[in-house]
Structure formats: structure tokens, C-alpha cells
């Protein structure tokens, strides 16, 4: 596990959003990643919350500012306002509730409607520890991810399985995209403020990255 670092000591700040239906485990993925905590009783997220953690990616310190959003439709208008400026997204569903996977398509639409088209998206099937209750097959999800050009991983916030990997992968891919873009433009990436104005590159970039890095549990 990468070392937790001081808040202000970073080369990049990337804004990442966690989206998906209510109760799929977004808040626990976040608390597992940023504080290594998990709670069965974590309360529903009202509006948005966020947490940060810095990790090392390719010799650079990347600070991830991860926004955890309310899952319920009702809060969509508020939460979608926070999509703005996001360069990465983890679109979470619950592998034991098929309906949360069905809704992924709507979430994706929503996300793409509010963010730069080049945002790095990872489809995350959470609660993979509940093997006996599985309702969404890995193959189905993988196929969907390929079709939609997103990354894919199955995780378990409870067992701390793949959580680190999922976030790290997203951050790494964002970094790749940003670096490449920076080279093209000749910009100094370190000077970019707050991650909000980072252009993560053209659609092709993301696709290329995606093909190289798709993985699953």
C-alpha cells in the first residue's frame, strides 16, 4: 500500500468522482481507500462528501480528491454539479443486486453529459466478497465495460480486495493521459491548478490506455 502523505505535498491533484446506485458501497470504497476503514453501518451520503489521499504514480505524487456522491436519483441534480472538473470516475454497482448494474448505463450517460468526454472511467463491481449472492456475472460486466470503453474491476471494500488497485489504476491512467497530453501541448503539468482544468486528452488517448490496462478480479 502506498504511503499516506501530507496533504499539500503533491505534483498533481486529480478530482475523481464515485457514482452509482444507493447502497452499492461507494462510501465504504472511499473510506477503505483513504482511511482503511469499513463500516456496515455507514450512513447514506446526503449530497456530496469528499476525502483525499496522495499516492505515488510513476515517480510523481498524485493527490486524489475523491468525491463521494449520494446514490439516489433525487440527489442527482446536486451531485452532478460536482462532476464538473472530474478527470476520473469510479462507477460502482453491487454485484449482488442486478438492478444496480442495469442502472450503470444511465449513470454513464449522466456522467458523460456532465464531464469532459475524455474522463477516465472505471466500472467497479463492489461486494465481490458476497460470492453466494452474486447476481451479476463478471463476464457480463466485462463485456459491458469493453463496449463502453471503460475500465473494469471487481472489488470488496469489506475484504479490502482490489480497492487500492482500482483507485491506483484510475489515477495512473489519468496520469498517463495527462502526461501525454502535456507532452503534446508542451505544457508544464505541475503548474496546472487543482486538476480542474486538466484536459485529459482526446478520446483516442483514453481508448488506447484502456486497451492496455483493463483488468478484473
Amino acid at each position, binding site marked *: 500500500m502506498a504511503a499516506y502523505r501530507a496533504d499539500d505535498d503533491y505534483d498533481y491533484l486529480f478530482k475523481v468522482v464515485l457514482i452509482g446506485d444507493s*447502497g452499492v458501497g461507494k462510501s465504504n470504497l472511499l473510506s477503505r481507500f483513504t482511511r482503511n476503514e469499513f463500516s456496515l453501518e455507514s450512513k447514506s451520503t446526503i*449530497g456530496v462528501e*469528499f476525502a483525499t489521499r496522495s499516492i505515488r504514480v510513476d515517480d510523481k505524487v498524485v493527490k486524489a480528491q475523491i468525491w463521494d456522491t449520494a446514490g439516489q*436519483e433525487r440527489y442527482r*441534480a446536486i451531485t452532478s454539479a460536482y462532476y464538473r472538473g472530474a478527470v476520473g470516475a469510479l462507477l460502482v454497482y453491487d454485484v449482488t443486486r442486478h438492478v444496480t448494474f442495469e*442502472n450503470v448505463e444511465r449513470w454513464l450517460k449522466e456522467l458523460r453529459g456532465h464531464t469532459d468526454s475524455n474522463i477516465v472511467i472505471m466500472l467497479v463491481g463492489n461486494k465481490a466478497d458476497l460470492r453466494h449472492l452474486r447476481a451479476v456475472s463478471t463476464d457480463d460486466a466485462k463485456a459491458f465495460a469493453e463496449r463502453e470503453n471503460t475500465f473494469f474491476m471487481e472489488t470488496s471494500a469489506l475484504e479490502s480486495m482490489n480497492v487500492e488497485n482500482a483507485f491506483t489504476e484510475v489515477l495512473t491512467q489519468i496520469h498517463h493521459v495527462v502526461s501525454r497530453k502535456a507532452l503534446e501541448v508542451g505544457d508544464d503539468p505541475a503548474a496546472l491548478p487543482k486538476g480542474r482544468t486538466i484536459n485529459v486528452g482526446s478520446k483516442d488517448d483514453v481508448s488506447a490506455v484502456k486497451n492496455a490496462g483493463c483488468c478484473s478480479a
Partner: protein
Amino acid sequence: MVNAFIRVTDREKKKQKGRQNSNRDFSLDLTVVFPYIAIFMLFFSTGDGIEGLRKWILFAEASTAGGGGGGGFWSYYSVVSPSGIAIAVTAMAGIALAATIVYSRRGSLKSPWALRKRKYALQPKQWKSLFTPDGKLGDGGVKFLKKVRSGVFTPTNCDVCMLNRYDLNSSKEERDSIRRQKRKEFERLRKRCRQILKRVENSSTVKETAGNNCNEDSEDLSQVVDSSGLEDVDSGRRSTEGESPMVDDSENSSKVKETAGNNCNEDSEDLSQVVDSSGLEDVVSGRRSTKGESPMVDDSDRPPRGQSHQTLVSSDSDSEGGIDKSEITCEDNSPGETESSGSDTSDEDENIPLFASEITEENNIDKDDNSSASRIKSRSKSHADEDFATWQRIIRVDAVRANDEWIAYSSTQALVSEMKAYQLAESVGLKEYDHLEPCRIYHAARLVAILEAYTLYDPEIGYCQGMSDLLSPIISVVEDDSEAFWCFAGFMKKARHNFRLDEVGIRRQLNIVSKIIKCKDSHLYRHLEELQAEDCFFVYRMVVVLFRRELSFEQTLCLWEVVWADQAAIRAGITKTSWGRMRLRAPPTDDLLLYAIAACVLQRRKLIIEMYSSMDEIMRECHSMAGRLDVWKLLDDAHGLVVNLHDKI
């Protein structure tokens, strides 16, 4: 029939008994030899500043022989009786003793805000003297509200949550009648919930896979839920707004209903039939949804109060007048919407007067509000996006993750048997509770029962996450589901606007917080502007769940009660009365909560101005206030703001 107040001396008890005793061991409590009384009408809570005691006093009814004379009297009890059976006579005899014991003990208790001196409690005699022999509050409740508003612990510290239900001027008899009627209504709502659940479960496989892919399916359900029996309401709304989109919407929905079978799989049709089949309740829920349409209705005229009042008071001629009015309103604007209302009319008679008056009231408010268009939009949108099945799912997700803070405050529920808990869970279709102990399963199941009923009662809002946070404290002190439901419904009359999809309610609230900060502290406000945070979105959560996430269970109840008292005062029109003797002379306001929120931001002004350079940081600060707020200081500051700013906001 004898009325009694039950006071829940939760904290006190806990403290006195010491934590070495398990929460479940209540039988030895000295203070509580008194009956636990079945049905309460008003529940009162009080906050004692000195000890931080929380007293919830339940206005309860004890039905016993011999209690009938004198039109009822008010008394209060420490509630922790293990027996759960009311014997009013005993209770009466014991009042004085109970009071003595309770009060003498309080002196030795400590709390986080123990140093903040509060006024002393009223003695039972004084408390009783607030009521006339027929169970009415004297002087329209002014004195009573004064006590609650100032956060003083007295037995007269009325829980305003219940006051939402009853007119301050109501007599015991009237309240009894309302209670009976409302119980039936709640039972009907529950029955519908069970029917729907059954259908959904029977077709769960289809549902599960079809889910939201088959949107018509779920849409049908929700639309039908909303439209069945709502003709009057819809028409009322339409007449209010006089806009055709609404008509289209409703007509569409009824068309959908008719053709549901063609478009969708069978279960949706079945569902719609189930929902459709109950006439009276539909009207009720419909009325509610109408009501909710006006964002600014707030609590100035809440249906339960108005309804009960009118239902009780209205003579025949009143009713007829009401009916006429409502019919006229409907016919004016809703041709083609009356097909099913005709069959329902006979059943609805008693409700109609209320109906009409509400619609009329709303018309006015709506016109003022000018947001009917967005409302319409939101309505249709919400129906497209969410449905009863979704709500059912989310309610269960939230119910099982409700925390256990309440356990220390609700002895009898903490003691619930495993069997009873499992039975209730099964009856409401709650599963996936393996990790919970029986009392929490029971709590979760009650949450499900009431929240689900609420989605039928108020289909425009349905269920929104955060509502379980609001209900949990209420069911912790109110052990009867029907009473708890109506408490919650009364509470939601104002709170529901925060959950509207179109965000009109929440934005209005945030806007007021922003205004308060601007008026009070222009320096801070400028800083917020620089950070583009002047919209105060960082207090969003506080507004939506009324500090529930920031304050402890007990503190939350303290705050809510005072906030409710203000709202009750406004509702009762006691705004002009002299509040001169009250602490800080703050006039009652509908928005005390918002003043409190502004106060807690202002308490951190230095930190915000000097240390924070983005909205994110302020939001993080606000989200990390849990456990760091002193509720009495918050209220003092809030009252201070009210005094200075109420005429500017």
C-alpha cells in the same frame, strides 16, 4: 378516558442507573411505577439545560374506567414502565411522587452543557394549570410554547412534533377522535404497502431482471400510485396553476394506467390495480401530494392540523360547503378527470372539506410562489426516474444501517424479543439484517413500515435518503407506529420541501442561510464570495437532515423541539404576542434551524476566513462538526441572530 402525559426520562434514567446496568434492565427503576400508556396524542419533550436531560412527554391516553369525568386532565409520567399497560388512576396518584423523585435526582446529573444554567422546571401543578378542564391549552398555547421555545425544561415543554398534528386549541375529545380516525388511515396505508410488497415479491424475478430496463413498468407503478384516486388532487393542482402541462401529465398517467397491461408485463398491471383499488387512502395521499406541490406552504397550514380541526369541528353545513367548493374547483379545470372520483365521493365526504380548503389555500400560495412550472417538470421527471419499487429497495438499505444511538433512549424497544423483531421484519419484507441484534432489526422494520407508508401518503416526495435519519428519533420515542407515522408526516410537512427533486425548497433554505451570513458578517460573506461559496452549499447536509448527522441523538431532539416550537407558534399565529419575557426576546421564526446553521458557520468565521481557500475545505469543516457542537450555544447564537436579523431576512 383520561389523558396523561408520559415523560420519557431516557437520559436521566440511564445516568441514574449507571451504565453498569444494561440498557435492558429497567424494571427496577424507582421513578417509574407508572403505567405506560397506550396511545399518545401529543408528545412532549423537554430539554433541561442544567442536566441536559431529555424529557419527552407523551400526551397519552389512558383508557380506564373512572377516568372519564371532568373531560380529561393532563398529567405526566416517567415512562419506563415495563408493564405497558395504562392505569390512569394509579398514574394520577403517583404524579406527585414521580415528580418529586425525578426532580430531586436531576440536580446531581451532569451533561456536556451542564454549566449552562437553564431555568427550573415547572411543577406538575403549574403544568396542569396550562390546560382547561376539557383538555385545551389555555391562552391558545402561548405560555406553553414559550416554555418550549426557550429550551427550558418543564413538564409543559411540549413536543411540537405532535403539536403539528393537533390544533393548539383542540380539546381532548377532538384529539381522541382524530387519533382514531388517523389510526385507520395509517392502517389502510400499511395494508396497501403489504399488498404491493406481495405483488412485487411474487414477481420479484421478473422485477429483478426487468428492473429499470423496463421503465414503463416501474413508471406505471409510480404513476398509478400517484394518480389513482387523485383526480381531485390533480384537478385541484391544475386549478391552482391553470397550466396545461399538468393536465397532459395526468391524462398521460391515467392513459398509462389503462394501457399498462399492453406495454408492460403483468405484474405492473397487478400492482397498479392493487394501488388503484383503495379509494379513500388514495385521496389522502393525493391530497398530500397536492399539498406538497407548493414549496412555500411550509407549516403555516398543515393538513393534519387543519384536517383534524375541520373534520372535528365542521358541522354538516360546513362539510357541504366544502364539498361544493371542491367540486367546483375540480370541475372548473379538470374535465375528464372525474371518472373515478364519483365512485369515491361517498367515502370521502368527511375529508372533502379539508380538501377544498387546502386546495384553496394552496392556490394562493402557489400563485405567489410562481414556481409551478418547475414543479410540474419535477413531478413528471420524478415519476420517470423513481418509483415505489426503487423506494422500497432504498428504504430497506437505509433501515438496516440506521445506527443504534436510540437504544439508550427507548427502553421498551431495546427489550423487544427476538421473535417479535423477526416477525415484524418478515411482515414488512425486511431481509439482510443478519448482522443486527433483535432490537435493531425491530427498529429497522418499523422504519420500513412507516417510510413505506409515507411513500404512498406523499407520492410526490416518496422516499428520499435522509428521511430515515429524520424518522429514527421519532420512532425511538413514539412506540406506536400510527402515532409515529403521523408525527413524522407532520414533521415532514415542512421538511419534505428539502427533498424535492426540483430543489426549490433546499435552494430557498440555503439562500436564507446565505442571507443571514451576509447580514451578520459581511467580511465572512465576502470571503465566501471570493471562494464562490456564497450559495452555502457546504451546509446542504445540515439543512436536509436538520443537524442529525452533526448532533447526538439527544442533542438533536433538543434542537428539533425548539425549532418545532417556533414553527408551532407561527402556525398558531402567535407571532405578535409579547414574547418579551423570553430569553433574548427572539420572536418565533419558521427558520430557526437556518439561523442555527448560520450560527455554526459564524462560530467558525475566523477559521474560514484565515485558513480556508476553497469551498471544499469549508464543506469538510462542516462535515466534521459531528460531536463538536454545543446545542445550547447553537440555540443561543441562533436566537441572537433572530433578534438582530429577523426583520431583515
